[in-house]
């Protein structure tokens, strides 16, 4: 059985294959009713609109159906029931399970108790592989990923999307540029792991210093709750904000990505520039998730 749990489980060839498949779904090269006899459970124990909707959309586009519970219903389903039991029961209803859960490792656990494939749609501060795949897909739409310079900006300490994207990029000979406020730097063990995987990781003090060297700038959210008070938050947030005046002298094909929803990290004026690619990125969630759903249930 094929589960999609963590980007660590994938080799380069697996990622390339899934990205190629996503490209086929994107350009309409698929049997329209490919999953018309399939039913997927969207188990979301934590709020999410985008991820949940894009899985539901992907399933509908393939002619399949989804049943689901959102965080409120989910918490009443469990009423003290373990996730392991919920998964065993739901497994007997459906052909695959998409799981979002607040605990790290929840999807791994689910895959051990499920009798159908499990797709991890985010487990706490842990993994979110479908997000990473759509990030890769978006980069690859514009340029070969190999050998690019990718900047990660924002909360690199707690930001799960940044960690799993960095791990995936380490399979592509990418040079990683990290730009994070003090205290929110990438954890040392992750940087170590990236370097062990042969990745060059360069730390920068600010975005101005790095941006002209980049092919991709991936911006992540800086959360208010990581700071002792609002003043220090606003101080940091404003110095890491992306505004159009940063783009003087950047590479023509620079792409600004963001997993969305954004708070104040990117000035809306950036949306009008050719560098803004985050809405395209969000849209790519559908073909990428079509590829994943199809892959595990075909």
């Amino acid at each position, binding site marked *: 059985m094929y589960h999609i749990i*963590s980007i*660590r489980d994938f080799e380069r060839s697996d990622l390339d294959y899934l990205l190629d498949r996503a490209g086929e779904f994107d350009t309409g090269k698929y049997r329209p009713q490919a999953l018309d006899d399939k039913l997927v459970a969207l188990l979301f124990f934590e709020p999410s609109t985008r991820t949940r909707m894009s899985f539901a959309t992907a399933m509908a586009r393939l002619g399949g159906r989804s049943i689901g519970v959102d965080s409120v219903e989910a918490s009443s389903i469990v009423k003290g029931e*373990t*996730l*392991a039991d919920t998964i065993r029961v739901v497994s007997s209803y459906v052909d695959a399970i998409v799981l979002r*859960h*607040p*605990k*790290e*490792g*929840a999807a*791994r*656990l689910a895959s*051990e108790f499920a009798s159908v494939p499990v797709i991890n749609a985010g*487990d*706490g*501060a*842990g*993994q979110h592989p479908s997000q990473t795949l759509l990030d890769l897909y978006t980069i690859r739409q514009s340029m070969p990923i190999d050998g690019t310079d990718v900047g990660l900006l924002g909360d690199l300490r707690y930001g799960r999307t940044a960690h799993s994207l960095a791990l995936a990029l380490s399979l592509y000979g990418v040079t990683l540029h990290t730009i994070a406020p003090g205290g929110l730097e990438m954890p040392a*063990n992750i940087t*170590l792991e990236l370097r062990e995987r042969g990745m060059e990781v360069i730390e920068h003090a600010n975005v101005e210093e790095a941006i002209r060297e980049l092919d991709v700038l991936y911006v992540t959210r800086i959360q208010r709750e990581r700071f002792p008070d609002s003043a220090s938050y606003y101080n940091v947030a404003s110095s890491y904000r992306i505004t159009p005046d940063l783009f003087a002298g950047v590479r023509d094909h620079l792409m600004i990505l963001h997993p969305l929803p954004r708070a104040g990290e990117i000035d809306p004026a950036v949306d009008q520039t050719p560098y803004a690619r985050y809405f395209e990125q969000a849209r790519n969630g559908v073909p990428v998730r079509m590829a994943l759903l199809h892959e595990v249930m075909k």
Partner: protein
Amino acid sequence: MTRKDPSGGLIISPIRNGTVIDHITAGEALNVLRILGITGSTRECLSIATNVRSKRMGRKDVVKIENRELRTEEVDRIALLAPQAKINIIRDYRVVEKKGVEIPEILKGVVRCPNPGCITNTNEPVESTFEVLPKGLHCLYCDWLVKDDIANHII
């Protein structure tokens, strides 16, 4: 085991049946007892020597427990704290078996994951599972890496 200590002080009686854990990393004897669930109220004859001189290790700890042979999981835990420990099984006052300890590749239910958000720290029916790497213990559920102070995380 000498019945009469040359300095005329300490006397430890030999055990008839039981286990001698020798060559424990100096200072780890009390952690070894904790792993074995041995508390002050244990009835068995128990002797502990800490920081004794050893030709091989400079200083070492030794633990001797009567009427107790160790389970594999206990040996795995001891290996984490004292990789050079030697386990001697004593039957009828004689050492009948002597074995080293070995850290297994996967530790199941031995170490508690320090990540409070890890699924293994909930009421789920799952044991903590760590892969043993040269740089530390890697949680196979949440990817946490335990590098220091492993003794304090042993369940």
